[in-house]
């Protein structure tokens, strides 16, 4: 994997806290796939939902500072694992093209932002762009075949469609493509893949999250998924950390592990579950790990038997 493009890495705050495992697994997967990036110096919080809920200008100022930092260290493009951060960075970049808006934001910054800011993209799109299915396949040590995976993107990754450029906003398929390259053949056509999980409302208004997350978990369990595969720290938190709250809300038992797609890819690449941060999950993913191993062993034996 070689590219002349310099990638600035924007982890987002949750990568240093609640989604440590996301950061661990995505950096591991990127390392294996040969995607080189350097963390943006002195990056700051993008402001998340609260900033734009309060003021788009404040939100844009916080994001613009990060993009400017990236430019200063020579990045051509900024990559982040978090859809919420990505959405904010992209919104900011787009709004800054409006001269009046830019003027108002520049007033908030230490110095006016340059006319051209680098583009932002997700780790997932970067993998999809730089690595072909063949590239990914070549790293697979343990196929994900046989694991019933419910792919879940959440609402931010693909919306708004013009801005995020992530395929059909109702039915994105990039995650499925990456998983398929890792041998996954039982990825479900998950109908709620872009429905909102309740987002950050979990803290101030718990039912808002538990009702929405509960529905997603409920359908995934009914569809007999082994696990849910996510790409957003907030979704992961709502579906995993708050799974018990959701169970109480909809009066059901789920117990379904919620993994980042990078964790599943890492497992397929044969990484140690610990380096992927699997021990950080609230609902244990041990049975997924075991099942992948068992299925692969069984297949190997079956093949060996045939060969003999």
């Amino acid at each position, binding site marked *: 994997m070689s590219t002349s493009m310099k990638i600035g890495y924007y982890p987002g705050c949750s990568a240093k806290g609640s989604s440590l495992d996301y950061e661990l697994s995505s950096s591991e997967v990127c390392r294996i796939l040969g995607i080189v990036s350097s963390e943006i110096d002195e990056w700051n919080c993008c402001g998340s939902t609260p900033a734009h809920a309060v003021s788009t200008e404040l939100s844009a100022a916080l994001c613009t500072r990060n993009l400017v930092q990236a430019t200063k260290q020579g990045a051509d493009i900024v990559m982040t694992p978090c859809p919420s951060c990505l959405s904010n960075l992209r919104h900011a970049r787009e709004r800054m093209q409006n001269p009046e808006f830019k003027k108002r934001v520049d007033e908030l910054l230490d110095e006016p932002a340059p006319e051209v800011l680098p583009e932002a993209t997700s780790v997932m799109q970067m993998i999809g762009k730089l690595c072909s299915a063949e590239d990914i396949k070549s790293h697979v040590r343990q196929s994900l075949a046989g694991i019933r995976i419910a792919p879940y993107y959440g609402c931010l990754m693909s919306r708004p469609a013009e801005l995020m450029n992530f395929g*059909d*906003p*109702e*039915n994105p398929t990039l995650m499925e493509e990456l998983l398929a390259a890792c041998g996954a053949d039982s990825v479900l056509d998950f*109908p709620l893949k872009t429905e909102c999980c309740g987002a950050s409302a979990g803290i101030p208004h718990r039912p808002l999250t538990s009702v929405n997350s509960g529905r997603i978990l409920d*359908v*995934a*369990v*009914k*569809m007999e998924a082994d696990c849910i595969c996510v790409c957003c720290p907030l979704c992961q938190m709502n579906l995993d950390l708050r799974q018990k709250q959701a169970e109480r809300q909809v009066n059901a038992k789920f117990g379904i592990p919620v993994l980042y797609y990078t964790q599943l890819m890492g497992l397929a690449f044969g990484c140690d579950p610990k380096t992927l941060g699997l021990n950080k999950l609230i609902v244990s993913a041990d049975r997924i790990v075991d099942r992948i191993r068992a299925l692969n062993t069984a297949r190997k034996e079956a093949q060996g038997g045939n060969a003999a």
Partner: protein
Amino acid sequence: MRIGVFVCHCGSNIAGTVDCKAAAESALSLPDVVYATDLMYSCAEPGQAAIEKAIHDYALTGVVVASCSPRMHEPTFRRTVERAGLNRYMFEMANIREHVSWIGKDKVANTNKACELIAMAVAKLRNDRPLHSQSFDVTKKVLIIGGGIAGIQAALDCADGGIPVILVEREPTIGGKMAKLDKTFPTVDCSACILGPKMVDVAQHPNITLYACSEVEDITGYVGNFDVTIRKKTTYVDWDKCTGCGACTEKCPSKNVPDRFNENVGLTTAINIPFPQAIPKRASINPDYCRKLTTGKCGICAKICPTKAIDYERKDELINVKVGSVIAATGYDLMDWTVYEEYGGGRYPDVITSLQYERLLNASGPTGGHIKRPSDGKEPKRIVFIQCVGSRDKSIGRPLCSGFCCMYTAKQAVLTKDHIPDSQSYVFYMDIRAAGKLYDEFTRRAVEEYGTEYIRGRVSKIYPDGNGQLIVCGSDTLLGQRVEVPCDLVVLAVGINASKGASHLAEKLRISYDQYGFFLEGHPKLRPVETNTAGVFLAGVCQGTKDIPSSVAQGSAAAAKVLSLFARDKLENDPQIAHVNAARCVACGKCIRCCPFGAIREEEFRGQLKAKVIDTVCQGCGLCTATCPQGAIQLSHATDNEILAEVNQLCQF
């Protein structure tokens, strides 16, 4: 030249924002203008009489009327001046209504503009020459494209009127969409029962020649004399021999063929007859699935056929016919609703179109008239109908209302209750559009007598709950609450487009079409059946959304247009065509190269080659005039000098 100028008030339509009297007075200063006045309504009888009188009183040789658009009343005033003894082309119009009085309120600017437009018209008129039509023969035969209910009605009416009809149908049977329907609203009578006899009439009428499985390949010519090439697509069956006995369909081993007639719910055989009442009742082979044609091994149908009609080598045939008029009745197709990913994008088997549901209701359909849902064949108990799928949706570029969905959805809800008494239907709607005779009464019956639940709101999402049910997420905007309906089957009232390929046909017919492929009528109110191409008429949904009674009415209307066109033995051509000034022609052939109609040819004239226009073929576009460097070929009534006169009148340094 002696020119009279008449400035029309059009009541207050023009006079409200244009000083018509001043405009008329200013015209008097123009060269050759000997008389100018303003009139209250120039198109009304007193107005026309005033023009005629002025022509006599002032010995006028040309007339300018400043009023509405020439697209509206040019023919009216041409007849007026003709009655007064002038050549009808010694007349010009200045459009001071649509282009002046209606688009601005500044009276000074408007009056000035009106004066200038009048001056331009006078300048052009001074270059006009009298023109005379030539008459030519008419082929009294009509081509009808499309054998749905509109085409059938038009064919029968023309044929009864004594006109030979060529009816071309793309599918193996006529009947169109109506043949697929179970019942029709608001009377809930059987569609096949009322359509069937008409289809039989078509087959038996001595004046009708039916070409099924055929398409129009090419059309050239002009009103009265069109040359049509029809491609008769091969069915691999000699239809002269086939009796429609159906023996082949019983024995055909290729049984997993998507059934087009049944909207791909259910399967059929590679050789098949679409449905029992098909006209013509003939078998045809689907070459994509026929084992003989795909693998070379089989040939069972050929062996079994009692009349030896099967011929695997059979090729398409091209048939040439000459007709005097064309009726397009090509109908519609459903839009591709799979763009609605939030409704599953076609991936959920139990989310179907209303036309598919119609086949499930139909006794001759794939389920024998028992409603069984596609996924598992179970009888659905809770059915959700969603209206306006692909209609009234700007976000996918389809702001149109498809017109008849409200009504058939009510009908399907009623029929559902008839078929499955313990079922419950829910209809998500935005507005109920039931403006026909007995229509609103019908939708009320669906609610009041059949217990259909109408919920006012669009549906945001459909998803399978993992337990074999679908969850429909909508909202009840009247209540102000979200609504979720767990159900067994979802029926989408999918919006319509003009039938596939309509735009290609339009280009062959040289008629216009809109973004959905619907053909453009001559005038939205006053010429709904005509097109801008003389001799080409429209019937049915190809012109815009319509229900069955309206389609039948337009079919008859189109037939009436054909009959009145053919009531004359000779037609007159439009003299506004190109003419070659042989003296100036250097035979460079540029006009011949670019004429879109092949209306110019090279002819020897006094030992020299010259271009020559074929009067009846020339359509009067003037491309040749713009191409000829010597100005040797001039389009009558839009000559270089006439246009230059307008330019020079307007632009004087």
